[in-house]
């Protein structure tokens, strides 16, 4: 192994925990704050949910909150809905983002910039836009009416607050595709075009080249951006609350309702549900890292 390698000095400081003290010191503020805020918050919530502390906490540890939460008939339906929305929205976003990134790869600066302008628009603003666009009395409905497609606003298909949560899905697509495209475009542009040229020179068709060379090289980018998007959608509150079906509700909306219920005895149940939601999300993170490590074992990193 050459010692005068790409990076200088500090990277190879020897082995052992003590010699890495510099790195750990630099990381202390970040890990401290996140650990304290996020970890601490979770711990506090957990303690509340088992009754150890809290408004109604009698100091007696019990799992009644969890029992009530899981016994709630809405819970399973909410969970299913949350998973359904997250998977469909993430899946579709990923596919479209890959496509858009490929389109933009060879386009000029203005094209990619234009596709990213909507990024800073908050979800709430997007929700307003979607409502004004897709509700029965929205803009699209009026266009259809003007074109003679429908006779009244009641004829317009229900896209918001509907059982299939189409409005929700469309909103997430609208918001997340530019985000994922931004990242995937950067990943794509970082790929050495020589690989694809070589593949074509060896006889691969454009599709084969994409499927067997380009796509695998984008794998880690796709994994991590879709993970971020999935996690976000799964935990999203504002969007399903304002655009989604009233029954069933997604899990975060269910939790919100339970927490803000005037009946304060529902609080521990809300917190228990919240803990369950967090646990599920963490499961996803673990599953992802396991998948990725398996992936890297079977294929060499390019």
């Amino acid at each position, binding site marked *: 192994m050459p*010692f005068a390698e790409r990076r200088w000095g500090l990277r*190879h400081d*020897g*082995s052992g925990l003590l010699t890495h003290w510099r790195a750990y010191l630099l990381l202390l503020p970040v890990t401290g704050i996140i650990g304290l805020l996020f970890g601490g918050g979770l711990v506090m919530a957990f303690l509340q949910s088992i009754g150890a502390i809290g408004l109604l906490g009698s100091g007696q540890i019990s799992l009644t909150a969890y029992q009530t939460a899981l016994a709630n008939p809405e819970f399973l339906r909410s969970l299913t809905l949350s998973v359904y929305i997250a998977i469909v929205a993430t899946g579709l976003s990923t596919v479209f983002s890959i496509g858009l990134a490929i389109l933009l790869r060879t386009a000029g600066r203005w094209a990619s910039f234009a596709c990213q302008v909507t990024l800073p628009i908050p979800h709430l603003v997007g929700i307003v836009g979607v409502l004004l666009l897709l509700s029965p009395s929205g803009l699209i409905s009026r266009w259809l009416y003007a074109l003679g497609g429908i006779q009244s606003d009641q004829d317009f298909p229900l896209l918001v607050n509907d059982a299939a949560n189409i409005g929700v899905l469309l909103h997430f697509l609208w918001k997340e595709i530019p985000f994922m495209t931004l990242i995937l475009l950067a990943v794509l542009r970082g790929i050495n075009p020589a690989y694809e040229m070589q593949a074509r020179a060896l006889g691969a068709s454009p599709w084969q080249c994409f499927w067997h060379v380009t796509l695998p090289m984008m794998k880690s980018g796709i994994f991590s951006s879709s993970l971020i998007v999935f996690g976000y959608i799964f935990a999203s509150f504002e969007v399903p609350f304002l655009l989604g079906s009233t029954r069933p509700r997604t899990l975060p909306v269910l939790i919100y309702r339970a927490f803000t219920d005037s009946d304060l005895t529902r609080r521990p149940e809300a917190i228990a549900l919240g803990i369950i939601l967090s646990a599920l999300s963490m499961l996803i993170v673990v599953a992802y890292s396991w998948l990725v490590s398996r992936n890297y074992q079977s294929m060499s990193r390019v």
Partner: protein
Amino acid sequence: MSQLVLQNLTKHFLGATAVQDLWLEVQAGEILALLGPSGCGKSTILQMIAGVLQPDRGTIALDGKLLNRVPPEKRDIALVLQRGLLFPHLTVGENVAFGLKMRGINRAEREEKAIAMLHQVQLDGFGDRKPSALSGGQAQRVALARSLVIRPKLLLLDEPLSALDANLRAEMQDLILRLQTQTGVTLLIVTHDQAEAVVMSQRIALMFNGRLRQVDSPERIYQQPSDEPVAQFMGGVNFFAIQAQGQQWKLPNGLVLVSQHRHQGAIRATIRPEQIQVFTEMRSQNNVIPATVIANRFTGTQRRLTLAIAANLTLQAWVTPTQDFHVGQAVWAYLPPENLWYFSQTSALPQAVEVP
């Protein structure tokens, strides 16, 4: 007294040793090449001398002053890295003046010195350009200017020419040597190219695997390498077994060569390919042996012949291309006694190692 003294210098990386017990002395105003294959630890030594890497053991002293605890910016030693690394956010002029700015020299004087230095490297008028607008050769010159303008006592160059095209290299070699003459700075050059080391330096310190093998003038390393790996690294290609009886050296096929060195027993002999002379007719001299041409390659400046001497013995002879030979031709090879060198197989220590 030597200007730079390295004693017992040792550095480990992740369990492996990069540099082991290095002892070296460099004189003021000298040009020394630190030569060795990639990964042998020579860049590590430069980094330790410059102060950007701490040795695990050993001392570094400049003009008698111990440098181990002195931070790099106070060492009066300038290091030029392999990639030049001109600061992309500064102009060429600002790059050259950088060291002066760090020393608190006022703007007017900085600019004046920078312009003078740019003139010395033949880049007049380049002061306002950005590094991205420079060619490789120009960037390298700016890097040199940048480190010389602060008048360091010691200039360390890490593979200064390896990233340049072949034709630029000669030009840059001349420039570096000229600058060294003009400024009198002590120059330590790290390179893996033995030809470069030979051209540019007054002394070569040859390293393998973190240890010094031979420290000598280029002529002596060429003519009297301390062992076979050293000889091979310096481009030697002729190595053969000899039974030595005093000055009579017996080849495997029975023929005897006369040498200037005395030894008794089995040895490995070597002779540089450029020193073998090839005759088309027999000459009655010592050390003229019959051979057959089995390969003939023209390199522009030389004709490289592979000669078969005996069943298992071939020698390379590199002659001037004025005469041509054909494969299969019977010739006579003359191995001048003064150019024969050897390594003793029995002794553990390399021959003629110089420990300063």
